[in-house]
């Protein structure tokens, strides 16, 4: 690791004061991504700011039409929280599929979403559940938030504080996990939000989470496997690595989408 200074503010005001200093700041939440990055010398912060003691970033509550989850909420807590299990069980299930128990005991929702790893699970849920990403001074829709490979709409130093998602009438997340890392080689989140609003969000397959809009339109008209059987997923621009080719990923995405719809209609 390169040398860095360290601070652990207790409030957002203390954090603000640190940001106004000379040093370039990087936030540390669960560290499940960032500490590995520091070890590889791929990150070189002057001041590492541990945000884990800031109470304003914690908490989980029901909203009129969904859930609001603090940025610091750990994967293990989303997986086991009674409100999440009752209102959006698919989200609890997804959180329980991230990595392994030790990773879930440290990693946070905010860290995962801010990082926008192309194979991360949460971005698919946040995009499919019409999520809103809150920062200290604005709210960004999920459609605008996930920009590109590891790139989000967050400005330099902008802090993600909480995420809101809507409760679907039914939803399913299907993941084809890399057997070693558990990251998604492809993952598909299908959410029926009611009133003909269906969303299909894909992670792992491309450089950034995206929606399958033709599948959404077909499912909005007729929520059945038959309605999407004839559609194709384009392999253009999908990821190519040792695990899978773009064509294979395109095929996986269609299969996973059909599995999700089948699970919800059987």
């Amino acid at each position, binding site marked *: 690791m390169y040398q860095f200074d*360290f601070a652990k503010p207790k409030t957002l005001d203390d954090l603000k004061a640190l940001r106004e200093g000379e040093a370039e700041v990087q936030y540390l939440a669960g560290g499940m991504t960032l500490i590995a990055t520091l*070890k590889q010398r791929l990150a070189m912060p002057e001041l590492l700011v541990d945000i884990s003691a800031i109470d304003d970033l914690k908490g989980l509550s029901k909203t009129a039409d969904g859930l609001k989850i603090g940025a610091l909420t750990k994967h293990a807590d989303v997986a086991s929280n009674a409100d999440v299990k009752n209102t959006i069980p698919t989200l609890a299930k997804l959180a329980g599929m991230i990595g392994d128990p030790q990773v879930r005991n440290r990693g946070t929702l905010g860290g995962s979403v801010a990082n926008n790893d192309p194979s991360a699970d949460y971005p698919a849920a946040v995009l499919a559940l019409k999520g809103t990403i809150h920062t200290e001074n604005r709210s960004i829709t999920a459609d605008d938030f996930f920009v590109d490979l590891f790139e989000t709409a967050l400005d330099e130093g902008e802090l993600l504080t909480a995420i809101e998602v809507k409760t679907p009438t039914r939803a399913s997340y299907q993941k084809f996990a890399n057997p070693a890392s558990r990251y998604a080689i492809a993952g598909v989140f299908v959410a029926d939000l009611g009133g003909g609003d269906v969303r299909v969000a894909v992670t792992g397959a491309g450089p950034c989470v995206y929606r399958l809009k033709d599948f959404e339109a077909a499912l909005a008209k007729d929520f059945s496997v038959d309605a999407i059987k004839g559609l194709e997923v384009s392999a253009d621009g999908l990821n190519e690595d040792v695990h899978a080719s773009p064509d294979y990923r395109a095929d996986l995405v269609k299969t996973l989408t059909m599995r999700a719809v089948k699970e919800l209609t059987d």
Partner: protein
Amino acid sequence: MQVSFTLNGKPINADIDPRTLLVEFLRDQQSLTGTHVGCETSQCGACNVLLDGVPVKSCSLLMVQLDGCDVISIEGLASGETLHPMQQAFHENHGLQCGFCTPGMVIAGIGIYQRHGDAVTEETVREELEGNLCRCTGYHNIVQSVLAGAKAMAAAEKGA
């Protein structure tokens, strides 16, 4: 930087470089070499410790994150000569061969018991050992050990 925390029940005040990992501190500065380093990339679980009661990977934790926390390493589980029930279960069920993965497996097993109690199924144990690698045993006896350890931990709690 100054860090104060509890390690195996003992208060520790350390002046450390912010880059120090917990596993480095345990092994190099405390000579607690029961916590192993298999990968250093948070894949293998050989470095698992209990942080405020729950299993985490100590190769992916900075010491400076620990101020005010409670850490228990494998050395802190036994009471005197009496092994922790999960350790005893590994002993009785031949849950190890070379022993390299064992400290991490024992800690992971304790986490599994905490989440699921003694009614935990074999399938759940296999699933939740996802973050622990063993190059020797083929896992079978490790799974049996965790199942037996969960029963023993429940019995010990009832007895206590």
